[in-house]
């Protein structure tokens, strides 16, 4: 390993978070008060799909600098928001919107019983 910034404890926490929760959303702000249009868009997509937001584990990266930087490395994804469903990384806002429009998201959510 040439270069690694994410701490072992953060990695372990993230592993547990995405495994234990059906849907995990790393975002800027909270579902009630999103702090960025991209994060808001993902919350609205979940609402449009009828996903119970109380079942979506959301983490506000603006409150935790280590999390904000760490999650990018963890997912190998350079931007926030980030969505995990059943432990699997799905993508950011563009992909969620893309899947929402194509119907793939509905299919995935139904398949996963969400």
């Amino acid at each position: 390993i040439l270069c690694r910034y994410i701490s072992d404890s953060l990695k372990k926490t993230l592993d547990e978070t995405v495994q234990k929760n059906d849907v995990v959303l790393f975002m800027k702000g909270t579902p009630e008060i999103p702090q960025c249009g991209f994060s808001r868009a993902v919350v609205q997509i979940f609402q449009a799909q009828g996903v119970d937001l109380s079942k979506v584990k959301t983490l506000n990266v603006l409150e935790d600098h280590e999390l904000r930087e760490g999650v990018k490395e963890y997912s190998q994804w350079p931007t926030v928001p980030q969505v995990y469903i059943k432990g699997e990384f799905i993508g950011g806002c563009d992909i969620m919107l893309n899947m929402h429009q194509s119907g793939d998201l509905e299919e995935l959510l139904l398949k996963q019983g969400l």
Partner: protein
Amino acid sequence: MSAGITKEHLEQTLRDKLSADHVEVIDTSGGCGQSYDVVIVSSVFEGKTVLQKHRLVNDAVKTEIAQLHAFSQKTYTPAQWVELSNK
């Protein structure tokens, strides 16, 4: 604050690294160079899932994205692009 990334730089980098047929970069920052929407058409996207395509793009402009506030992408294969243009 970062100095920002120019539209031209982003466009050229995407063209070079993804051997793209077509690249469209729209500056949505109002000129400060921190927010872009891009459309990329390349045959390297053939047979890839959306996630894989986006990862290719993210990888190609990794250092640039790190300096941006917002980056939004649409990725198409040449065939998909033709189909889209005909609509």
